[in-house]
């Protein structure tokens, strides 16, 4: 920490201690607190949104990959003449195609139209928070100088220059503080009110991309329906039967 930085930090720490002790008046700005509250609320939600969007893409990628690997394994399980061998190879073709599409379209569209804009929006908040922190510091400076002026007024000093000097300083620190305050109180509502128009295209793109992906998956899987013998109703218990057949083998007993 530089020398100024340290000096400022010490000054501010002193001021905030004195404020909590009631020795220095603290500026309470209700209007700003509301804005700040809204900013924080929006920040949390945007971060969550970004996280969920990312999680979705990861899950879809994981699913697509796992499914493709499964189709490979299934084909390896079958040998020539297996009744479901044809279905296995058809399934493999379908999911490979699907995985390619997912990479080429879903992934790209989703990244460009959903993740990237969300990331950009989420990336705005640190800048706002930075400004918020500076404003809080400048406010402390302002409160300190103000109480300093008040003290001089209450107990006039011998030095006639002291009051004008302190007042000048007060004007300066007020101006600096007001600058940040105004900046934030105009910028936060701007950010809050742009959220829906900003996010709407992402939202639409997201839903449309997901529709496309699921539609394509549905079409592809539906097209190979005839390769499967039944409609999936008689599957219950089948795998259990096979497993118990295996369990009956003495080589499968635990040794």
């Amino acid at each position, binding site marked *: 920490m530089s020398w100024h930085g340290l000096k400022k930090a010490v000054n501010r720490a002193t001021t905030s201690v004195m404020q909590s002790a009631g020795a220095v008046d603290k500026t309470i700005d209700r209007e700003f607190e509301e804005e700040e509250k809204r900013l924080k609320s*929006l920040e949390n*939600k945007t971060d969550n949104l970004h996280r969920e969007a990312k999680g979705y893409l990861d899950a879809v990628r994981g699913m697509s990959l796992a499914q493709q690997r499964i189709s490979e394994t299934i084909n390896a399980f079958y040998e020539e003449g297996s009744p479901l061998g044809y279905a296995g190879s058809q399934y493999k073709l379908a999911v490979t195609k699907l995985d390619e599409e997912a990479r080429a379209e879903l992934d790209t569209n989703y990244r460009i139209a959903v993740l990237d804009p969300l990331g*950009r929006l989420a990336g705005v908040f640190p800048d706002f928070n930075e400004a918020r922190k500076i404003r809080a510091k400048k406010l402390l400076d302002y409160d300190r100088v103000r109480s300093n002026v008040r003290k001089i007024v209450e107990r006039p000093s011998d030095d006639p220059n002291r009051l004008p000097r302190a007042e000048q300083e007060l004007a300066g620190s007020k101006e*600096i503080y007001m600058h940040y305050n105004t900046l934030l109180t105009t910028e936060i509502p701007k950010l809050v*009110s742009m959220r829906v128009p900003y996010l709407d*295209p992402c939202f639409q793109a997201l839903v449309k991309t997901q529709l496309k992906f699921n539609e394509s998956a549905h079409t592809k899987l*539906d097209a190979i329906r005839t390769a499967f013998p039944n409609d999936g109703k008689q599957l219950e218990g089948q795998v259990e039967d096979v497993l118990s057949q295996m369990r009956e083998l003495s*080589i499968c007993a635990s040794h």
Partner: protein
Amino acid sequence: MSWKGLSKAVARLPTRLAQRTGYASETVDQEFLELESQFKRLEGMARKFTEDAKKFKDSLSAMLAHQARFAEMLVQVYRPIAALPNQTPPPGMPRTSIDALEDEVMEEDYRAASGAVSPSKMKPDYPESQAAAEAFAEAMVAAREQLLPDLQVIERQMVAPTNEYIMLINNVKRLLDKRARKLVDYDRHRDSYQKLKNKPDKNLSDEKRLSSLESSLDQATREFNNVDNILKQELPTFIGLRVAFIDPCFQTLYWYELKVVETLHHCFADLCNKHFDMSVTAAQGFDAKYEEMMGMLQELTLAKKGYRRSEYAAGDENADGAEEGEEQQQQQYAASASESRRSEDALPAYEASALPSKATYSATPTALAAFRTPGGSGSSTSQIQPPPSTTPRTTYVIALYDFDGAEEGDLKFKKDDKIEVLERTPDANDWWSGRVKGVTGQFPGYVDRFG
């Protein structure tokens, strides 16, 4: 290992070593080896299948969960912001005095005060978007609920059975190990029996040992044959059952996956038809709005700083520490403040003042000057100056999310990695080349943020 097990292992060790070095003969059973390699292949496949089946099911359920939570969060964002009780802030957020204020109280305050809020702060309402978001959330929650039983079927008829299958395979594997051990025993006893038997002049004790060796050999042979026979009989059956095993798993996967995508397809189709203009594709619709969206971001003065800095001072942040970076930012603020207000005359006033804060404010113009012309710095600025650069500056970008690379030559990185940009194009949607952790490669320019 039991004492018995240990002593057996010790007894087998010399033979194993001798066999490995080719000194002692080892029984080779071609038929069995074939069977064993088939089994090994099956084991490999089964393990892969088990792993992927679990991953598939987990990803599917994660997908549904993320979808539903995204939708829910979107609704929260779309609703007027302060009207909702806040989420708990994520850990690691710096606590400021403002954070410490109780959320509830703040909400109350806001509601109480919102009547008096000036018109500029009234949030525009977006009933249409909000309705779409709410419908989306509802549909996602419904879809998730509807599909959860199906996920359970996938779990019950595919994931759980494969785990069971692996357990059986492990049992067989243990038996195979046992056979291998018994085979060593057999070889060992046979060798010592043969050696003694072929000894040209046997004395009495040799004869006695020979008969005891013979009986050990007999026992070893019996034990080995037992295991060997069982395996030879049953292993083909076990391997043969694999198809019968995979059939129902595969069909479960197919039918339930079909059901999932069908449900989701209808659910999204319904949603899109009700709320969106389907004559444009996702990409078209987004592209049409892209400029507008970026414009909105540009409108934010506070955020623009971040963008502007990336263009001329991206290297600065790397050079100095966080604390100095903060100082510097403050000066940028102060500088922009003075510029925008065109009140240069306000600044000398601080310089004239003799109060402790003087140093801070008086540093502003000097620092700014030094900032613009690296090299010229007064004593007051020396501490807060980033080192003037003499070498070409390196630009870094921070990854916004993970990127695993789609092809050979793609750069791989994790979220928040710092990437050194080697070559970039003006278009952020293009591929740039960069370096991270000493590896050079291509990466999409839109996955990063300057800083």
